């Protein structure tokens, strides 16, 4: 099954959660997600999500020089971003709990 479509609905909460612990720049965030098992996510999806969350005011940016390459643009959560993450987490846990119950219900046969 192609999980990318399923994950697209969760992109906001995934990216915000990754940045909740530590600020990061685009490609690094993608690597964190990949190391967390989200191999289906593409760079464009992460970059697009970052820009959308930034436009919505949930993220702020700052640039830091890099010793090994070009300057890097770091993203960090804003207060509205944290609030949005809490609401999204609550919504996810609610849906997740219901889904668990739904799947744990014995099927006929």
């Amino acid at each position, binding site marked *: 099954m192609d999980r990318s479509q399923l994950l*697209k609905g969760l*992109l906001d909460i995934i990216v915000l959660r990754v940045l909740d612990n530590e600020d990061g*720049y*685009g*490609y*690094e965030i993608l690597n964190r997600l990949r190391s967390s098992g989200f191999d289906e996510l*593409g*760079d*464009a*999806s992460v*970059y*697009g*999500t970052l*820009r*959308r969350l930034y*436009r919505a005011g949930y993220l702020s940016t700052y640039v830091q020089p*890099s010793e*090994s*390459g*070009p*300057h*890097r*643009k770091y993203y960090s959560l804003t207060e509205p971003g944290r609030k949005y993450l809490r609401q999204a987490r609550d919504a996810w846990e609610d849906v997740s709990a219901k889904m668990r119950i739904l799947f744990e219900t014995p099927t006929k046969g």
Partner: protein
Amino acid sequence: MTDAPNRTSEIASYLAAVERHLGDLPEPIRTDLMSELDLHLAEVAADLGPGMALRDLLGSPESYARELRETAEVQKEPAAARIRRSLSQTFAPVLTRSKTVADRFAASTGHEDAAELAERLRPGWWVLRGAVVAALFVYWLASAQFGVTGYSYFNSIPGLIFGVAMLLLGVWASIKIGMKAPEWGRRRRRVTAAASIAIVALAALQFSPIMTGAFPTTYVETYYDGGDDYGWVTDVHVYDENGRRLTGVYLFDQNGDPLWIGDPGACDESGWNDPFAQDPEVDEFGQAVESPVEEYEVDTSELGYQYPLCAPGENPAATPTPEEDPTATPAPGEGTRSEDPATQNPDADPTSPLPAEADATATPTGDAPTTK
């Protein structure tokens, strides 16, 4: 390993391709995505292994753009919506400025804003629209009926009643439409408004001469003149076969009735040959006489016009040129004199510019047969 210049051009090429595939996005979103993408791709490229290309890691620019579009939560715009958005973006500054001016004007009239003033003026607009439609209808109807533009229906009582009735009907219908319009859909209201503005603009164009005080009353040709090929003839000049002009000539048809060809009024007053004036030099046999006019009570009106109606050379425009002379120049002595009693002797022609002897053989240069 890919060196730095190549990596830079690779990034630029990739960026340009992505931007091409995002061309239909709203400008603010596209600008935001593209403004940071070069830096992002540089970060990605910095972590690329030796010999790896951006395409290997990110996929094709087209698929990258598609993914970006999906995460930017923007659906691909239909062409019509894109054109509308483009137009509205283009005219937005003008509209904003116009609204500001309109609001300022409305405020100067004691209203909150232009919208409130427009609401107040709306019934007046309905009346104007109805009156204009009625006026146009009556105007066009009169033009079609009488073949005359600018004909006033109001010169007669029935016409006046008809005009007023049409005016009242137009105003009534317009008010009904105006009051009903709020119940209609947006599209229908817009079409109605556009049609109304178009009609008023057409009326302004149609009736603009009234405003300038130069209302034209123009007859529209609707009849056929019966094929009168000589209606345009104002005079007749007669020549004999020697090219000499004959004067004092009458024209008759096969029944002996005079031919009334020409227009005596077209001659200059000074040189006009009054066709009804009694000719003191001509008797009933066409011979010159010395008797005074009073002794010959010839009613020339029974003979028709006497040609030429105008004195020779009176009208410079009628002076023919040799090239226009349809009569061949005869050799001296070849010609014969006309014996038609209606034809006057050229020798007796008081208006002939040349002596009879010279005239008989000369090529006419200034008196070629022509009509004016």
